[in-house]
Protein backbone atom coordinates (compact mmCIF):
# COMPACT_ATOMS: atom_id res chain seq x y z
CA UNK A 1 0.00 0.00 0.00
CA UNK A 2 2.87 2.34 0.85
CA UNK A 3 4.40 2.05 -2.62
CA UNK A 4 1.02 2.47 -4.29
CA UNK A 5 0.47 5.62 -2.22
CA UNK A 6 3.86 7.12 -3.08
CA UNK A 7 3.40 6.29 -6.78
CA UNK A 8 0.02 8.03 -6.90
CA UNK A 9 1.30 10.96 -4.84
CA UNK A 10 4.11 11.35 -7.37
CA UNK A 11 1.54 11.62 -10.14
CA UNK A 12 -0.43 14.17 -8.11
CA UNK A 13 2.67 16.25 -7.32
CA UNK A 14 3.62 16.29 -10.97
CA UNK A 15 0.18 17.48 -12.05
CA UNK A 16 -0.34 19.98 -9.22
CA UNK A 17 2.63 22.04 -7.97
CA UNK A 18 0.65 23.02 -4.87
CA UNK A 19 0.85 19.41 -3.61
CA UNK A 20 3.17 19.21 -0.63
CA UNK A 21 4.40 16.19 1.33
CA UNK A 22 5.47 16.76 4.93
CA UNK A 23 6.93 13.82 6.80
CA UNK A 24 7.48 13.48 10.52
CA UNK A 25 10.97 12.11 9.94
CA UNK A 26 9.74 8.72 8.75
CA UNK A 27 9.68 6.93 5.41
CA UNK A 28 13.25 5.67 5.13
CA UNK A 29 13.91 4.42 1.62
CA UNK A 30 10.34 5.23 0.59
CA UNK A 31 10.32 8.99 0.18
CA UNK A 32 13.88 9.60 -1.04
CA UNK A 33 12.98 9.54 -4.70
CA UNK A 34 10.01 11.86 -4.19
CA UNK A 35 12.16 14.31 -2.21
CA UNK A 36 14.81 14.39 -4.94
CA UNK A 37 12.29 14.82 -7.70
CA UNK A 38 10.14 17.44 -5.96
CA UNK A 39 12.46 19.28 -3.56
CA UNK A 40 10.08 22.26 -3.30
CA UNK A 41 7.15 19.97 -2.56
CA UNK A 42 8.81 17.92 0.15
CA UNK A 43 9.59 18.79 3.75
CA UNK A 44 10.87 16.77 6.67
CA UNK A 45 9.42 18.49 9.73
CA UNK A 46 11.42 16.38 12.16
CA UNK A 47 10.05 14.32 15.02
CA UNK A 48 7.52 16.98 15.95
CA UNK A 49 4.00 15.99 14.93
CA UNK A 50 2.19 18.90 16.55
CA UNK A 51 4.31 21.38 14.64
CA UNK A 52 4.11 19.27 11.47
CA UNK A 53 0.32 19.39 11.59
CA UNK A 54 0.22 23.12 12.37
CA UNK A 55 2.67 23.80 9.54
CA UNK A 56 0.46 21.74 7.22
CA UNK A 57 -2.53 23.89 8.22
CA UNK A 58 -0.55 27.08 7.65
CA UNK A 59 0.61 25.95 4.22
CA UNK A 60 -2.90 24.86 3.28
CA UNK A 61 -4.20 28.28 4.34
CA UNK A 62 -1.66 29.74 1.93
CA UNK A 63 -2.77 27.73 -1.10
CA UNK A 64 -1.12 24.32 -0.76
CA UNK A 65 -2.65 20.86 -0.76
CA UNK A 66 -0.73 19.11 1.97
CA UNK A 67 -0.10 15.47 2.92
CA UNK A 68 1.33 14.81 6.38
CA UNK A 69 3.04 11.44 6.63
CA UNK A 70 4.08 9.27 9.54
CA UNK A 71 3.42 5.84 10.98
CA UNK A 72 0.97 4.24 13.40
CA UNK A 73 -0.48 6.77 15.89
CA UNK A 74 2.09 9.52 15.44
CA UNK A 75 0.35 11.59 12.75
CA UNK A 76 -3.10 11.16 14.35
CA UNK A 77 -3.30 10.78 18.12
CA UNK A 78 -0.09 12.64 18.97
CA UNK A 79 -1.41 15.80 17.33
CA UNK A 80 -5.14 15.19 17.55
CA UNK A 81 -6.08 18.69 18.63
CA UNK A 82 -4.07 20.24 15.81
CA UNK A 83 -6.02 18.06 13.38
CA UNK A 84 -9.32 19.04 14.98
CA UNK A 85 -8.80 22.78 15.47
CA UNK A 86 -6.26 23.75 12.82
CA UNK A 87 -7.28 21.47 9.95
CA UNK A 88 -10.89 20.34 10.42
CA UNK A 89 -12.33 23.57 11.82
CA UNK A 90 -10.83 25.50 8.90
CA UNK A 91 -11.83 22.74 6.45
CA UNK A 92 -8.35 22.72 4.93
CA UNK A 93 -7.18 20.39 2.14
CA UNK A 94 -4.80 18.42 4.31
CA UNK A 95 -4.54 14.63 4.13
CA UNK A 96 -3.20 12.91 7.22
CA UNK A 97 -1.49 9.71 6.08
CA UNK A 98 -0.72 6.93 8.51
CA UNK A 99 1.37 3.98 7.46
CA UNK A 100 0.92 0.81 9.49
CA UNK A 101 -2.77 0.88 10.39
CA UNK A 102 -3.88 -2.02 12.59
CA UNK A 103 -1.13 -4.53 13.35
CA UNK A 104 1.22 -3.86 10.43
CA UNK A 105 3.92 -3.00 12.98
CA UNK A 106 2.83 -5.83 15.29
CA UNK A 107 6.24 -6.84 16.70
CA UNK A 108 7.04 -3.23 17.70
CA UNK A 109 4.48 -3.28 20.50
CA UNK A 110 1.46 -1.38 21.76
CA UNK A 111 2.81 2.08 20.86
CA UNK A 112 2.83 0.98 17.21
CA UNK A 113 -0.53 -0.78 17.12
CA UNK A 114 -2.96 1.61 15.43
CA UNK A 115 -6.37 0.20 16.25
CA UNK A 116 -8.30 3.27 17.43
CA UNK A 117 -7.26 5.70 14.70
CA UNK A 118 -10.33 5.32 12.50
CA UNK A 119 -12.68 5.73 15.47
CA UNK A 120 -10.93 8.92 16.52
CA UNK A 121 -10.44 10.44 13.06
CA UNK A 122 -13.98 9.47 12.09
CA UNK A 123 -15.37 11.47 15.00
CA UNK A 124 -13.85 14.74 13.77
CA UNK A 125 -16.12 17.19 11.97
CA UNK A 126 -15.74 17.24 8.20
CA UNK A 127 -13.04 14.57 8.17
CA UNK A 128 -13.18 12.18 5.22
CA UNK A 129 -11.87 8.78 6.34
CA UNK A 130 -10.46 6.41 3.76
CA UNK A 131 -9.07 3.03 4.68
CA UNK A 132 -8.22 1.10 1.53
CA UNK A 133 -8.04 -2.67 1.64
CA UNK A 134 -5.41 -3.33 -1.01
CA UNK A 135 -2.86 -1.50 -3.19
CA UNK A 136 -5.41 -0.86 -5.94
CA UNK A 137 -7.87 0.76 -3.57
CA UNK A 138 -4.92 2.72 -2.17
CA UNK A 139 -4.28 4.30 -5.55
CA UNK A 140 -7.93 5.25 -5.92
CA UNK A 141 -8.14 6.62 -2.37
CA UNK A 142 -4.95 8.66 -2.75
CA UNK A 143 -6.37 10.18 -5.91
CA UNK A 144 -9.48 11.26 -4.01
CA UNK A 145 -7.42 12.68 -1.15
CA UNK A 146 -5.35 14.63 -3.63
CA UNK A 147 -8.24 16.26 -5.42
CA UNK A 148 -11.27 16.49 -3.10
CA UNK A 149 -11.96 19.55 -0.93
CA UNK A 150 -11.35 19.58 2.83
CA UNK A 151 -9.49 17.21 5.13
CA UNK A 152 -8.91 13.48 4.68
CA UNK A 153 -7.53 10.74 6.86
CA UNK A 154 -5.84 8.09 4.73
CA UNK A 155 -5.16 4.92 6.68
CA UNK A 156 -2.76 2.57 4.98
CA UNK A 157 -1.18 -0.75 5.73
CA UNK A 158 2.51 -1.17 5.24
CA UNK A 159 3.78 -2.97 2.17
CA UNK A 160 3.42 -6.30 0.40
CA UNK A 161 -0.35 -6.56 0.69
CA UNK A 162 -1.91 -8.70 -2.05
CA UNK A 163 -3.90 -7.04 -4.80
CA UNK A 164 -7.51 -8.07 -4.27
CA UNK A 165 -8.89 -6.28 -7.30
CA UNK A 166 -7.98 -7.16 -10.86
CA UNK A 167 -7.82 -3.67 -12.32
CA UNK A 168 -7.44 -0.04 -11.33
CA UNK A 169 -10.71 1.83 -10.95
CA UNK A 170 -12.04 5.08 -9.58
CA UNK A 171 -14.06 4.72 -6.43
CA UNK A 172 -17.14 6.82 -6.09
CA UNK A 173 -17.57 8.94 -2.98
CA UNK A 174 -18.92 6.94 -0.07
CA UNK A 175 -19.72 3.72 -1.87
CA UNK A 176 -18.77 0.15 -1.15
CA UNK A 177 -17.31 -2.13 -3.77
CA UNK A 178 -19.05 -5.39 -4.55
CA UNK A 179 -16.52 -8.21 -4.53
CA UNK A 180 -18.80 -11.22 -4.59
CA UNK A 181 -22.59 -11.28 -4.73
CA UNK A 182 -24.06 -14.80 -5.06
CA UNK A 183 -27.70 -15.53 -5.73
CA UNK A 184 -29.91 -16.36 -2.73
CA UNK A 185 -27.36 -14.77 -0.44
CA UNK A 186 -27.85 -15.50 3.28
CA UNK A 187 -24.91 -13.54 4.67
CA UNK A 188 -23.26 -10.25 3.63
CA UNK A 189 -19.71 -9.70 4.80
CA UNK A 190 -18.51 -6.10 4.74
CA UNK A 191 -14.77 -5.58 5.11
CA UNK A 192 -12.81 -2.48 6.02
CA UNK A 193 -9.62 -1.26 7.67
CA UNK A 194 -7.42 -3.66 5.75
CA UNK A 195 -9.41 -6.83 6.46
CA UNK A 196 -10.79 -7.62 3.00
CA UNK A 197 -8.49 -10.63 2.65
CA UNK A 198 -10.00 -12.10 5.82
CA UNK A 199 -13.52 -11.48 4.54
CA UNK A 200 -12.82 -13.18 1.23
CA UNK A 201 -11.27 -16.21 2.91
CA UNK A 202 -14.26 -16.38 5.28
CA UNK A 203 -16.59 -16.43 2.31
CA UNK A 204 -14.75 -19.49 0.95
CA UNK A 205 -15.01 -21.28 4.31
CA UNK A 206 -18.72 -20.53 4.50
CA UNK A 207 -19.24 -21.72 0.96
CA UNK A 208 -17.64 -25.04 1.91
CA UNK A 209 -20.07 -25.20 4.82
CA UNK A 210 -22.97 -24.67 2.45
CA UNK A 211 -23.62 -21.01 3.30
CA UNK A 212 -23.99 -18.47 0.55
CA UNK A 213 -22.15 -15.29 1.57
CA UNK A 214 -21.43 -12.11 -0.36
CA UNK A 215 -18.46 -9.81 0.21
CA UNK A 216 -18.23 -6.02 0.00
CA UNK A 217 -15.15 -3.87 0.41
CA UNK A 218 -15.63 -0.55 2.18
CA UNK A 219 -12.60 1.72 1.84
CA UNK A 220 -14.95 4.58 2.79
CA UNK A 221 -15.52 4.97 6.49
CA UNK A 222 -16.62 8.61 6.28
CA UNK A 223 -18.82 9.28 4.45
CA UNK A 224 -20.19 5.81 4.90
CA UNK A 225 -22.29 3.87 2.38
CA UNK A 226 -25.57 3.68 4.29
CA UNK A 227 -27.57 2.89 1.18
CA UNK A 228 -25.76 -0.36 0.34
CA UNK A 229 -25.63 -1.29 4.03
CA UNK A 230 -29.40 -0.98 4.40
CA UNK A 231 -30.11 -2.70 1.11
CA UNK A 232 -28.08 -5.68 2.31
CA UNK A 233 -29.50 -5.60 5.84
CA UNK A 234 -33.03 -5.75 4.42
CA UNK A 235 -32.32 -8.82 2.31
CA UNK A 236 -29.96 -11.14 4.21
CA UNK A 237 -30.02 -13.01 7.51
CA UNK A 238 -26.72 -11.69 8.79
CA UNK A 239 -24.46 -8.73 8.09
CA UNK A 240 -20.95 -9.49 9.29
CA UNK A 241 -18.34 -6.75 9.45
CA UNK A 242 -14.62 -7.46 9.60
CA UNK A 243 -11.97 -4.84 10.32
CA UNK A 244 -8.39 -4.71 11.55
CA UNK A 245 -9.38 -1.99 13.97
CA UNK A 246 -11.10 -1.80 17.33
CA UNK A 247 -14.60 -3.29 17.12
CA UNK A 248 -15.64 0.05 18.59
CA UNK A 249 -15.95 3.16 16.44
CA UNK A 250 -14.98 1.80 13.04
CA UNK A 251 -16.76 -0.01 10.23
CA UNK A 252 -18.92 -2.29 12.39
CA UNK A 253 -20.17 0.60 14.51
CA UNK A 254 -21.29 2.43 11.38
CA UNK A 255 -23.10 -0.60 10.00
CA UNK A 256 -24.83 -1.22 13.34
CA UNK A 257 -25.74 2.46 13.68
CA UNK A 258 -27.21 2.54 10.18
CA UNK A 259 -29.29 -0.57 10.91
CA UNK A 260 -30.41 0.68 14.32
CA UNK A 261 -31.92 3.84 12.89
CA UNK A 262 -33.63 2.31 9.84
CA UNK A 263 -36.88 0.42 9.38
CA UNK A 264 -37.42 -3.01 7.87
CA UNK A 265 -34.11 -4.47 8.94
CA UNK A 266 -34.18 -8.27 9.15
CA UNK A 267 -30.49 -8.96 9.50
CA UNK A 268 -28.53 -9.36 12.68
CA UNK A 269 -25.20 -7.50 12.73
CA UNK A 270 -22.02 -9.23 13.87
CA UNK A 271 -18.96 -7.06 14.39
CA UNK A 272 -15.57 -8.73 14.17
CA UNK A 273 -12.76 -6.42 15.21
CA UNK A 274 -9.93 -5.94 17.65
CA UNK A 275 -10.76 -6.06 21.39
CA UNK A 276 -10.28 -2.81 23.32
CA UNK A 277 -7.79 -4.27 25.76
CA UNK A 278 -4.07 -3.78 24.96
CA UNK A 279 -2.30 -6.95 23.86
CA UNK A 280 0.92 -7.65 25.67
CA UNK A 281 2.11 -10.63 23.65
CA UNK A 282 3.45 -9.36 20.38
CA UNK A 283 4.21 -10.88 17.03
CA UNK A 284 3.84 -10.29 13.32
CA UNK A 285 0.62 -9.09 11.73
CA UNK A 286 -0.74 -12.62 11.34
CA UNK A 287 0.14 -13.49 14.94
CA UNK A 288 -1.62 -10.36 16.18
CA UNK A 289 -4.68 -11.07 14.04
CA UNK A 290 -4.82 -14.60 15.47
CA UNK A 291 -4.61 -13.24 19.02
CA UNK A 292 -7.34 -10.70 18.34
CA UNK A 293 -9.65 -13.35 16.89
CA UNK A 294 -9.43 -11.71 13.52
CA UNK A 295 -9.23 -14.78 11.28
CA UNK A 296 -11.39 -16.32 8.54
CA UNK A 297 -12.09 -19.26 10.88
CA UNK A 298 -13.43 -17.02 13.64
CA UNK A 299 -15.54 -15.05 11.17
CA UNK A 300 -16.96 -18.26 9.65
CA UNK A 301 -17.61 -19.90 13.03
CA UNK A 302 -19.34 -16.85 14.49
CA UNK A 303 -21.44 -16.63 11.34
CA UNK A 304 -22.47 -20.29 11.48
CA UNK A 305 -23.27 -20.05 15.20
CA UNK A 306 -25.42 -16.96 14.67
CA UNK A 307 -27.28 -18.64 11.79
CA UNK A 308 -27.97 -21.67 14.02
CA UNK A 309 -29.32 -19.44 16.79
CA UNK A 310 -31.51 -17.63 14.32
CA UNK A 311 -32.86 -20.91 12.96
CA UNK A 312 -33.50 -22.24 16.47
CA UNK A 313 -35.54 -19.13 17.36
CA UNK A 314 -37.79 -19.55 14.37
Amino acid at each position, binding site marked *: MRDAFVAELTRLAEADPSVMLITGDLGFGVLAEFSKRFPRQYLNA*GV*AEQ*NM*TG*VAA*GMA*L*TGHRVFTYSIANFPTLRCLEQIR*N*DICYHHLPVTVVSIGGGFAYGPLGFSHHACEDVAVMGALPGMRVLSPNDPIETTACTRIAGTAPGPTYLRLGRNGEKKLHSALFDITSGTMIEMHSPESMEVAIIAGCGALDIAMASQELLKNAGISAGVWSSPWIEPFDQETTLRLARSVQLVVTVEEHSFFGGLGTRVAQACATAEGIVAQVIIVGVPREPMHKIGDQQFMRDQAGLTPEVVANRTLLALEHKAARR
Partner: protein
Amino acid sequence: MNDLTPVVTKLDPKDLALRIRKHAVRMTSLGRSSHVGSVLSCADILATLYARLMRVRPHEPLWPDRDRFIMSKGHAGAGLYATLAELGFFPIERLDTHCQNGSTLCGHVATHGIPGVDFSTGSLGHGLPVGAGIAYALKIRAATSRTFVLLSDGELDEGSNWEAFLFASHHQLSNICVIVDYNKIQSLAPVSETLGLEPLMDKFRAFGWEARECDGHDHKALERALAPASDRAPVVVLANTIKGCGVSFMQHSVLWHYRTPQGDEFMAAMAELEGTPNA
Protein backbone atom coordinates in the same frame (compact mmCIF):
# COMPACT_ATOMS: atom_id res chain seq x y z
CA MET B 1 -0.70 47.28 -10.06
CA ASN B 2 0.60 45.82 -6.86
CA ASP B 3 -0.25 48.46 -4.28
CA LEU B 4 1.70 47.70 -1.13
CA THR B 5 0.86 50.95 0.61
CA PRO B 6 -0.29 50.23 4.14
CA VAL B 7 -3.94 51.18 4.38
CA VAL B 8 -3.86 51.93 8.06
CA THR B 9 -1.11 54.47 8.69
CA LYS B 10 -3.69 57.20 9.19
CA LEU B 11 -4.59 55.70 12.54
CA ASP B 12 -2.78 56.87 15.62
CA PRO B 13 -1.69 53.83 17.66
CA LYS B 14 -2.38 55.62 20.94
CA ASP B 15 -5.89 56.45 19.85
CA LEU B 16 -6.45 52.93 18.50
CA ALA B 17 -5.10 51.31 21.70
CA LEU B 18 -7.48 53.38 23.84
CA ARG B 19 -10.41 52.43 21.63
CA ILE B 20 -9.44 48.73 21.83
CA ARG B 21 -9.35 48.99 25.63
CA LYS B 22 -12.75 50.66 25.84
CA HIS B 23 -14.27 48.13 23.45
CA ALA B 24 -12.74 45.28 25.46
CA VAL B 25 -14.21 46.47 28.76
CA ARG B 26 -17.61 47.06 27.12
CA MET B 27 -17.59 43.73 25.19
CA THR B 28 -16.60 41.61 28.18
CA SER B 29 -19.21 43.41 30.27
CA LEU B 30 -22.03 42.97 27.75
CA GLY B 31 -21.13 39.34 27.08
CA ARG B 32 -20.33 38.65 30.75
CA SER B 33 -17.10 37.09 29.53
CA SER B 34 -13.60 36.67 30.90
CA HIS B 35 -10.09 37.71 29.89
CA VAL B 36 -10.41 41.51 29.92
CA GLY B 37 -7.02 41.69 31.67
CA SER B 38 -5.44 39.74 28.81
CA VAL B 39 -6.85 42.13 26.21
CA LEU B 40 -5.71 45.22 28.12
CA SER B 41 -2.26 43.64 28.30
CA CYS B 42 -1.88 43.37 24.52
CA ALA B 43 -3.92 46.40 23.35
CA ASP B 44 -0.82 48.45 22.55
CA ILE B 45 0.76 45.55 20.62
CA LEU B 46 -2.39 45.17 18.50
CA ALA B 47 -2.62 48.93 17.97
CA THR B 48 1.00 49.23 16.89
CA LEU B 49 0.72 46.27 14.54
CA TYR B 50 -2.45 47.40 12.83
CA ALA B 51 -1.84 51.16 12.88
CA ARG B 52 1.83 51.14 11.93
CA LEU B 53 3.06 47.84 10.52
CA MET B 54 0.55 45.43 9.04
CA ARG B 55 -0.17 45.63 5.33
CA VAL B 56 -3.85 44.78 5.15
CA ARG B 57 -6.88 45.89 3.16
CA PRO B 58 -10.11 46.05 5.14
CA HIS B 59 -12.08 46.16 1.88
CA GLU B 60 -10.23 43.05 0.63
CA PRO B 61 -9.60 40.86 3.71
CA LEU B 62 -8.15 37.94 1.71
CA TRP B 63 -5.77 40.13 -0.34
CA PRO B 64 -3.03 37.56 -1.15
CA ASP B 65 -0.17 40.01 -0.50
CA ARG B 66 -1.39 40.99 2.96
CA ASP B 67 0.61 40.50 6.10
CA ARG B 68 -0.84 37.77 8.29
CA PHE B 69 -1.64 37.96 11.97
CA ILE B 70 -2.34 35.03 14.27
CA MET B 71 -3.66 35.73 17.73
CA SER B 72 -2.35 32.57 19.33
CA LYS B 73 -3.52 33.77 22.74
CA GLY B 74 -7.04 33.35 21.44
CA HIS B 75 -8.64 34.16 24.80
CA ALA B 76 -7.88 37.82 24.09
CA GLY B 77 -10.06 37.60 20.99
CA ALA B 78 -12.11 40.64 22.02
CA GLY B 79 -8.99 42.74 21.40
CA LEU B 80 -8.55 41.45 17.86
CA TYR B 81 -12.23 41.85 17.03
CA ALA B 82 -12.15 45.43 18.34
CA THR B 83 -9.03 46.19 16.29
CA LEU B 84 -10.51 44.79 13.08
CA ALA B 85 -13.79 46.65 13.59
CA GLU B 86 -11.91 49.90 14.16
CA LEU B 87 -9.98 49.31 10.95
CA GLY B 88 -13.23 48.85 9.06
CA PHE B 89 -13.21 45.09 8.42
CA PHE B 90 -16.76 44.91 9.82
CA PRO B 91 -19.18 47.29 11.53
CA ILE B 92 -18.25 48.40 15.04
CA GLU B 93 -21.82 47.74 16.21
CA ARG B 94 -21.21 44.04 15.69
CA LEU B 95 -18.81 44.06 18.65
CA ASP B 96 -21.85 44.32 20.95
CA THR B 97 -22.76 40.73 20.05
CA HIS B 98 -19.49 39.34 21.47
CA CYS B 99 -20.12 36.17 23.53
CA GLN B 100 -23.89 36.57 23.17
CA ASN B 101 -26.23 33.77 22.08
CA GLY B 102 -26.26 33.41 18.31
CA SER B 103 -23.13 35.51 17.72
CA THR B 104 -20.13 34.38 15.69
CA LEU B 105 -17.82 36.60 17.76
CA CYS B 106 -16.93 33.91 20.27
CA GLY B 107 -14.78 34.29 23.33
CA HIS B 108 -11.78 32.88 21.52
CA VAL B 109 -10.68 33.97 18.06
CA ALA B 110 -12.63 32.44 15.16
CA THR B 111 -12.39 33.04 11.44
CA HIS B 112 -15.82 31.94 10.29
CA GLY B 113 -17.79 34.91 9.05
CA ILE B 114 -15.37 37.40 10.59
CA PRO B 115 -13.44 39.31 7.92
CA GLY B 116 -9.80 39.99 8.74
CA VAL B 117 -9.19 37.04 11.05
CA ASP B 118 -6.55 34.82 9.46
CA PHE B 119 -6.82 31.87 11.82
CA SER B 120 -9.01 30.55 14.64
CA THR B 121 -7.37 29.83 17.96
CA GLY B 122 -8.37 29.22 21.55
CA SER B 123 -6.31 26.23 22.56
CA LEU B 124 -2.83 27.49 23.40
CA GLY B 125 0.23 26.44 21.45
CA HIS B 126 -1.46 26.24 18.05
CA GLY B 127 -0.71 29.64 16.52
CA LEU B 128 3.04 29.46 16.09
CA PRO B 129 3.21 26.17 14.15
CA VAL B 130 0.49 27.46 11.82
CA GLY B 131 2.25 30.81 11.50
CA ALA B 132 5.45 28.93 10.67
CA GLY B 133 3.57 27.00 7.96
CA ILE B 134 2.26 30.24 6.46
CA ALA B 135 5.72 31.81 6.61
CA TYR B 136 7.28 28.73 5.00
CA ALA B 137 4.70 28.77 2.18
CA LEU B 138 5.23 32.51 1.63
CA LYS B 139 8.98 32.08 1.63
CA ILE B 140 9.08 29.33 -1.00
CA ARG B 141 7.01 31.51 -3.32
CA ALA B 142 9.27 34.51 -2.55
CA ALA B 143 6.35 36.60 -1.28
CA THR B 144 7.18 39.73 0.71
CA SER B 145 4.36 39.38 3.25
CA ARG B 146 5.25 39.05 6.91
CA THR B 147 3.52 36.80 9.42
CA PHE B 148 3.01 38.08 12.95
CA VAL B 149 2.09 35.72 15.80
CA LEU B 150 1.10 36.96 19.24
CA LEU B 151 1.76 34.53 22.10
CA SER B 152 1.05 34.84 25.78
CA ASP B 153 3.75 34.04 28.29
CA GLY B 154 1.80 31.22 29.94
CA GLU B 155 1.34 29.78 26.47
CA LEU B 156 5.07 29.15 26.27
CA ASP B 157 4.48 26.17 28.60
CA GLU B 158 3.08 24.36 25.55
CA GLY B 159 5.76 22.20 23.93
CA SER B 160 4.34 22.71 20.44
CA ASN B 161 5.74 26.27 20.50
CA TRP B 162 9.22 24.97 21.03
CA GLU B 163 8.85 22.54 18.14
CA ALA B 164 7.94 25.56 16.03
CA PHE B 165 10.81 27.67 17.39
CA LEU B 166 13.17 24.92 16.17
CA PHE B 167 11.41 24.69 12.82
CA ALA B 168 11.33 28.42 12.04
CA SER B 169 15.01 29.00 12.78
CA HIS B 170 16.09 25.84 10.94
CA HIS B 171 14.27 27.08 7.83
CA GLN B 172 15.43 30.68 8.35
CA LEU B 173 11.93 32.06 8.34
CA SER B 174 12.96 35.69 8.69
CA ASN B 175 9.47 36.63 7.47
CA ILE B 176 7.89 35.54 10.75
CA CYS B 177 7.74 37.78 13.80
CA VAL B 178 6.61 36.43 17.16
CA ILE B 179 5.50 38.80 19.90
CA VAL B 180 5.33 37.49 23.44
CA ASP B 181 2.90 39.43 25.62
CA TYR B 182 5.05 39.12 28.72
CA ASN B 183 2.78 40.25 31.56
CA LYS B 184 4.24 37.58 33.82
CA ILE B 185 0.87 36.35 35.07
CA GLN B 186 -0.76 33.15 33.87
CA SER B 187 -4.02 31.41 34.59
CA LEU B 188 -3.70 30.71 38.30
CA ALA B 189 -0.53 32.42 39.48
CA PRO B 190 2.56 34.36 38.39
CA VAL B 191 4.58 32.70 35.63
CA SER B 192 7.62 32.51 37.91
CA GLU B 193 5.66 30.39 40.41
CA THR B 194 4.09 28.14 37.77
CA LEU B 195 6.71 27.18 35.20
CA GLY B 196 9.50 29.73 35.21
CA LEU B 197 10.57 30.93 31.75
CA GLU B 198 13.73 32.86 32.58
CA PRO B 199 16.25 33.39 31.15
CA LEU B 200 13.79 33.75 28.27
CA MET B 201 15.83 35.94 25.90
CA ASP B 202 18.68 33.43 26.22
CA LYS B 203 16.30 30.60 25.37
CA PHE B 204 15.12 32.35 22.21
CA ARG B 205 18.69 33.08 21.14
CA ALA B 206 19.74 29.51 21.87
CA PHE B 207 16.94 28.43 19.52
CA GLY B 208 18.47 30.57 16.79
CA TRP B 209 16.07 33.52 16.87
CA GLU B 210 16.83 37.24 16.72
CA ALA B 211 15.45 38.19 20.13
CA ARG B 212 14.46 41.77 20.93
CA GLU B 213 12.97 43.17 24.11
CA CYS B 214 10.85 46.28 24.60
CA ASP B 215 8.21 48.03 26.66
CA GLY B 216 5.00 46.48 25.40
CA HIS B 217 3.01 49.65 26.08
CA ASP B 218 5.39 52.06 24.28
CA HIS B 219 4.20 52.32 20.68
CA LYS B 220 7.42 53.77 19.32
CA ALA B 221 9.52 51.12 21.07
CA LEU B 222 7.18 48.39 19.78
CA GLU B 223 7.38 49.75 16.24
CA ARG B 224 11.18 49.65 16.37
CA ALA B 225 11.22 46.14 17.85
CA LEU B 226 8.76 44.84 15.27
CA ALA B 227 10.86 46.03 12.33
CA PRO B 228 11.84 43.34 9.80
CA ALA B 229 14.58 40.87 10.62
CA SER B 230 18.12 42.16 10.23
CA ASP B 231 19.37 38.84 8.92
CA ARG B 232 18.04 35.40 8.07
CA ALA B 233 16.86 34.48 11.54
CA PRO B 234 13.22 34.79 12.58
CA VAL B 235 12.41 37.59 15.03
CA VAL B 236 10.88 37.29 18.47
CA VAL B 237 9.92 40.38 20.45
CA LEU B 238 9.60 40.02 24.20
CA ALA B 239 7.11 42.76 24.98
CA ASN B 240 7.12 43.57 28.68
CA THR B 241 3.53 44.31 29.57
CA ILE B 242 1.18 44.81 32.49
CA LYS B 243 -1.81 42.55 32.71
CA GLY B 244 -4.91 44.75 32.90
CA CYS B 245 -2.94 47.81 31.74
CA GLY B 246 -5.05 50.99 31.64
CA VAL B 247 -7.48 50.20 34.44
CA SER B 248 -5.79 50.61 37.82
CA PHE B 249 -7.79 48.01 39.73
CA MET B 250 -7.31 45.39 37.00
CA GLN B 251 -3.55 45.76 36.75
CA HIS B 252 -1.23 42.90 37.79
CA SER B 253 -4.26 40.86 38.78
CA VAL B 254 -5.02 37.16 38.26
CA LEU B 255 -8.63 37.90 39.22
CA TRP B 256 -9.22 39.93 36.06
CA HIS B 257 -8.20 37.00 33.91
CA TYR B 258 -11.66 35.69 34.80
CA ARG B 259 -13.82 38.44 36.28
CA THR B 260 -16.26 40.28 34.06
CA PRO B 261 -16.66 44.02 34.65
CA GLN B 262 -20.24 44.69 35.79
CA GLY B 263 -22.07 47.56 37.48
CA ASP B 264 -19.82 49.94 39.41
CA GLU B 265 -16.70 48.15 38.25
CA PHE B 266 -17.69 48.62 34.64
CA MET B 267 -18.46 52.30 35.23
CA ALA B 268 -15.19 52.83 37.09
CA ALA B 269 -13.16 51.09 34.37
CA MET B 270 -14.78 53.12 31.58
CA ALA B 271 -14.37 56.37 33.53
CA GLU B 272 -10.72 55.65 34.06
CA LEU B 273 -10.20 54.93 30.36
CA GLU B 274 -12.17 58.04 29.32
CA GLY B 275 -9.86 60.08 31.54
CA THR B 276 -6.78 58.66 29.89
CA PRO B 277 -5.07 61.46 28.00
CA ASN B 278 -5.47 60.66 24.32
CA ALA B 279 -2.12 61.93 23.05
